[in-house]
């Protein structure tokens, strides 16, 4: 993660003072992030029913940038340029009457005001942040199914294209496009507004937003198949959304806990894959490659998150990530503490088999492979873990530790039959090759 990415949650100017002009360099992800801010602002002014017009107007602004900037140079303040041109495009559409409604006069007046708003005006900057927050809550509304929430958030707030979302989720473009159409229909049918949650429904709506954000993060973080770069972007987009929530007055300790988990885990991304694109297990990672800025960010939010007496799943996940991060090296990881935390997590998650599988790894470190293997045996019947390569990979690892090499090899071969990414496949093949070598020796 670069400084630019780190800064985007709080400091990116809305209509921005981002570098442009003579330097000819754009802030990283400027277009993508500007989509979120401009569409959120336009949708608030135009009304959520005209979300499509808001999106089209921003698309038009970016197309014009593409036609003008290569010849004329990047304007002094590219973010503000996009903001203004998108406003003007919306005004033109309204004037042409395509979207004419009885309140058009009021809307036009506000659009005109917005288009001339000085980028440096701090109250306007605050307004934009507020608009984006409203948009996040709308896209993550509990009345909308999770898949739709995820796609809508990535498209509307995150500025990802249908193809990029499809690439990250291994879906085809048409399926994602359809999911978006359905999500927007649901927004209309459920009459979801851009209102911020009230005290009464804050918890429910915040949970829905946090779940959506954490899902996006995990999709990016899990080393499934898919386009690597996009997956990494998913992680940082989730982190950005989490930080937007954390910076708002609606933030609860859970929000900070989620940001802490994501930051501490994302800090390890650079160390997770070696130069050949092979997976490196946490234990073997070069800690020097962990991102210190993200670690500091994670610990900051972790400290804020323990302010309340609430302990959520995110708190425990953050605490686990913190134990790994604090350890100076592999040998000093406090496995007993990690096992304790997994016990808590298991309880909070209502005995989730995926959590139990992760817990088994900690059991092996504290009580030995035999006991961990016994735990794994109880999980094998779980429908959630059927055909889950990680269950087989972990089981194989434990069997190997116990010297039961042939059984381990059977597990890894079975794991190779499951859905897993190329780096994971290579990892399993390396394990298998190790067994073969021992046998032929």
């Amino acid at each position, binding site marked *: 993660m670069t400084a630019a990415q780190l800064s985007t949650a709080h400091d990116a100017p809305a209509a921005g003072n981002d570098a442009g002009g003579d330097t000819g360099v754009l802030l990283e*992800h400027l277009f*993508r992030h500007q989509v979120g801010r401009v569409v959120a602002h336009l949708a608030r002014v135009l009304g959520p029913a005209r979300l499509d017009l808001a999106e089209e107007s921003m698309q038009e602004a970016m*197309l014009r940038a*593409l*036609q003008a*900037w290569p010849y004329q*140079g990047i304007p002094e303040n590219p973010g503000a340029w996009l903001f203004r041109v998108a406003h003007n495009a919306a005004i033109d559409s309204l004037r042409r009457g395509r979207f004419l409604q009885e309140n058009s006069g009021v809307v036009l007046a506000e659009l005109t005001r917005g288009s001339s708003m000085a980028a440096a005006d701090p109250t306007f900057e605050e307004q934009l942040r507020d608009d984006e927050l409203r948009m996040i809550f709308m896209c993550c509304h509990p009345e909308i199914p999770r898949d739709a929430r995820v796609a809508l958030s990535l498209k509307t707030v995150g500025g990802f*294209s249908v193809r990029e979302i499809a690439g990250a989720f291994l879906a085809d473009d048409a399926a994602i496009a359809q999911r978006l159409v359905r999500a927007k229909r649901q927004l209309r049918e459920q009459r979801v507004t851009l209102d911020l949650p009230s005290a009464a429904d804050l918890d429910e709506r915040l949970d829905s937003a946090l779940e959506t954000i954490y899902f996006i993060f995990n999709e990016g973080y899990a080393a499934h198949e898919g386009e690597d770069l996009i997956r990494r972007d998913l992680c940082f987009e989730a982190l950005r959304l989490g930080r937007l929530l954390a910076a708002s007055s609606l933030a609860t300790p859970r929000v900070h806990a989620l940001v802490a988990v994501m930051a501490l885990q994302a800090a390890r991304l650079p160390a997770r894959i070696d130069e050949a694109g092979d997976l490196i297990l946490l234990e073997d990672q070069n800690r020097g490659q962990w991102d210190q800025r993200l670690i500091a960010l994670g610990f900051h939010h972790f400290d804020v998150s323990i302010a309340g007496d609430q302990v959520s799943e995110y708190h425990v996940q953050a605490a686990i990530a913190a134990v790994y991060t604090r350890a100076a090296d592999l040998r000093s990881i406090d496995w007993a503490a990690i096992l304790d935390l997994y016990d808590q997590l298991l309880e909070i998650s209502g005995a989730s088999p995926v959590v139990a599988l992760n817990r088994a790894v900690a059991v092996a470190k504290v009580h030995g492979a035999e006991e961990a293997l016994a735990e794994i045996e109880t999980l094998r019947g779980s429908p959630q873990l059927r055909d889950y390569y990680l269950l087989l990979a972990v089981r194989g690892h434990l069997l190997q530790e116990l010297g039961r090499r042939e059984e381990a090899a059977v597990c890894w071969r079975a794991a190779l039959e499951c859905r897993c990414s190329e780096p994971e496949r290579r990892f399993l093949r390396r394990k298998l090759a190790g067994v073969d070598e021992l046998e032929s020796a």
Partner: protein
Amino acid sequence: MPQYMLALYDDPSGWKKLSPEEMQKAVEKYMAWGKRPYVVQGKRLAADSGRVLKGVNGKGRATDGPYSETKEVLGGIYLIEAKDYDEAVQRTLDHPHLEHGTIELRQLYS
């Protein structure tokens, strides 16, 4: 040093398929190319099709722009310096515009 004009044609509807991230990357590529030392200047043309003026029976007459059969339109021009066509072609061949569009290269007489 002789100057050459690059006329950049493309089908603007092709841009619509790009994601915001891809659009930004495209802009950055054009900008990077435009900073090369032999690029004298760039000019963008208005997105409309302009006017065509023709002599009809000895009198000038203007009509709306040239509607060609193709969807490609002239979007802008660059002037570059090069010692001959070979060099001008070499300097233009890796222009990012060629990922989707057409460039017409013409020498200017000074």
